[in-house]
């Protein structure tokens, strides 16, 4: 792992070193131009010195934000993201005397150290229910599919019938297809977020190096703004939107459970598959078929509600979490990048024109 840990010598070191080198270089250029009395070169060198100084300030600002603000914004304890997350479940952890205060406020989120980790937690919360709901749908689909596919041959005549349950099967099929798509999107977002989490600093340091040279100044500014935006602005925008737009307390998908397995503090509150393992005994007895039928009939109200209402509700939740909120956060990110790039010395129309050709 040595190569990995020292692959890019920590982005902080590279950024500071590049900024310092550009200061030293432009100072040397000023001295050289004064020595040879080259006025035009002196002007250029002074401009470069100003840019180099601004690079140093930007690097210091970024280091400060990462070092000081990040734990307060996205740390595991006493951070804004933690408060928002617990608030989304309806717990007011700031005021111990409040009736909304809960013992859940004591829970420790050991794996959530950055804003991106909190964003992944927000994304993972509803998707945890996907598998549980698919379990229910598959359990239901077994007899439904069998009934749908019944095909009768009687004395050289054929009669096919689905016993009127095909609509349930279609509903289940469509739901599972949608859930599969959302899981794809979820995995895609998680992999991209992991990449950003580990390598945003590296690309920021590359941007600092590029900003030091006049020909690549624009590209460097853009890279710095994009890296910072992806690491900070994108996840914090998402967290704010998700907390305000669809708090977990308002959904009937998840409930808070401090000891839940698989995730800190939440558990899926969708119906689970009833325990039917006892029915394995005597499975070759025809009477068991009737028992299973009676089991379905006894729970038909709940099953009907789930097929008609709860699937739709859950899909709405997934669309918001995985499609709409990330899209809004991305728009905010691009607005940030547009303004910050110009602030850092880049020229977006020139960069954008070139990048657009790539697409």
């Amino acid at each position: 792992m040595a190569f990995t840990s020292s692959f890019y010598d920590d982005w902080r070191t590279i950024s500071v070193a590049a900024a310092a080198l550009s200061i030293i270089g432009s100072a040397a250029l000023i001295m050289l131009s004064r020595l040879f009395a080259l006025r035009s070169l002196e002007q250029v060198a002074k401009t470069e010195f100003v840019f180099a100084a601004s690079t140093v300030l930007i690097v210091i600002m970024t280091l400060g934000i990462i070092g000081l603000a990040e734990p307060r914004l996205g740390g595991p304890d006493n951070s804004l993201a933690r408060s928002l997350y617990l608030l989304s479940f309806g717990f007011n952890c700031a005021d111990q005397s409040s009736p909304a205060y809960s013992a859940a406020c004591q829970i420790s989120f050991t794996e959530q150290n950055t804003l991106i980790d909190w964003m992944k937690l927000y994304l993972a919360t509803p998707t945890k229910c996907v598998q549980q709901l698919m379990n229910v749908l598959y359990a239901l689909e077994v007899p439904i599919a069998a009934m749908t596919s019944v095909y009768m041959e009687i004395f050289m005549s054929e009669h096919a019938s689905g016993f009127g349950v095909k609509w349930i099967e279609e509903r289940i099929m469509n739901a599972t297809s949608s859930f599969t798509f959302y899981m794809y999107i979820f995995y895609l977002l998680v992999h991209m977020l992991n990449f950003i989490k580990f390598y945003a600093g590296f690309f920021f340091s590359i941007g600092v190096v590029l900003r030091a040279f006049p020909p690549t100044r624009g590209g460097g500014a853009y890279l710095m703004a994009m890296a910072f935006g992806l690491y900070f602005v994108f996840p914090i925008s998402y967290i704010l939107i998700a907390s305000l737009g669809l708090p977990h307390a308002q959904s009937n998908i998840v409930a808070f459970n401090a000891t839940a397995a698989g995730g800190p503090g939440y558990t899926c509150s969708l119906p689970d598959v009833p325990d039917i393992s006892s029915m394995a005994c005597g499975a070759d007895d025809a009477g068991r078929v009737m028992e299973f039928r009676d089991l379905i009939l006894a729970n038909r109200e709940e099953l009907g509600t789930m097929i008609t209402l709860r699937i739709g509700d859950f899909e709405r939740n997934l669309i918001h979490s995985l499609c709409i909120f990330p899209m809004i956060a991305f728009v905010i990110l691009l607005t940030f990048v547009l303004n910050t790039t110009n602030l850092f010395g880049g020229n977006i129309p020139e960069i954008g024109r070139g990048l657009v050709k790539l697409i």
Partner: protein
Amino acid sequence: MMKMHALALLSIVLLLGASAYAADDGSLSGFFNNTSTMITGQGNNFIDAAGAAGQVAPTTFSSVYDAFGPGNCGDYWISAVGGASTIIGVWYIPSIAVVFIVLIGLALVYMWGQVFNSPQMIALAKDEFFQTFLTVMRVVFLIGMLSAGEVWYSLRATDTGDRIYNNLNNKNMIDSASAFARMMVSDMVQHYSMLVMYNMVIHTLYSSTMWVGVTWRAMYSFNLGPVLKPLIDIVGSALQFLSLGISEWMLHIVTLCLIKKWTWGLFIPMSMLLRAFPYTRAAGEALFALVFALALFYPFMFIFDYEVHKIMKYNLVDAQKAMSTFLHKSGIMSLFGSVLVMMFLMAGVFMPFFLGGALNLAFELIRGSVYYIVIISIFLPFINIFVTLTAAKEIANFFRVDVNFMSFLKII
């Protein structure tokens, strides 16, 4: 009617129950173990394989993965193509001869300009001398930068305990880049194989049709397939995209081999030759910049990708272990065919297996597939090409040549 159903079920169980213990329930696990061992073994041989020593093409092959082999890349940069003497003898000497001829011509132009007192001709001759000098400096610059890159790489890679960096067959950065490309092919093929195995088991259940009735006179048939159709679809689309990813990484292997083999054997002499004439100077500069970027930046980007993969792969499950667990611990081996159907209908023993094991495994395999397809096969190669071409453009700009390499992106 109910009595007929009961009679049918009873007859099935009686007829087939006797043969329930005659089956070999270990053959599927045996097939899986043999196949996955073979895939792993051949994959490891493929990753660790040396570029063929010397100049001889391989004549026998011990691994099916050699279908992705790029041919003979040679051990070192200069010896990849028929040895140093071949390159120098056939292409460098003519290039240098042409340069000398051009120099003699320029000397004549200079003398002509002095004789006829033409400052324009003198300036032209001086400029062309300078350009010829720059050509030599370019080559020296390239040698220096490549050597610096290799020294940096060897300092970083020494004693890291890494399988690729510490493999003695990987002498240069480009060798390690090729080894990483082979590793990706091997990993994706393993993942693909596990998806195929999973598809094999699930599809068997999917394609089953149960017939119940009274001996051809009145029959009912049940398809057990639809319940598994979404899983089949998921796995099918993952397989399709993964196969395209494997094809793409094979092209990376071939590209890296071509770069290693032909940089000093063809591209550098050609760029020197093109740079010797004013009319083709821009083309020579463009080729030089592109070759420099491909020789230095492109392999480095693959090393960067390897470092990315080493961190991000911890989010993925080991597909072979997961599949092995699924096959051996789910209990599916212990069921026999007809009773399996019963279990389907009764939602008995089969249901915990299915819900607990198959769905989990499907999502883990798909999670891995999304990583290999999106991150490894789309996102990272795009960054590789973009950085390489941008570096080539900036290098060309530095030497005051404006080239547009972006048409190469159309190849993507």
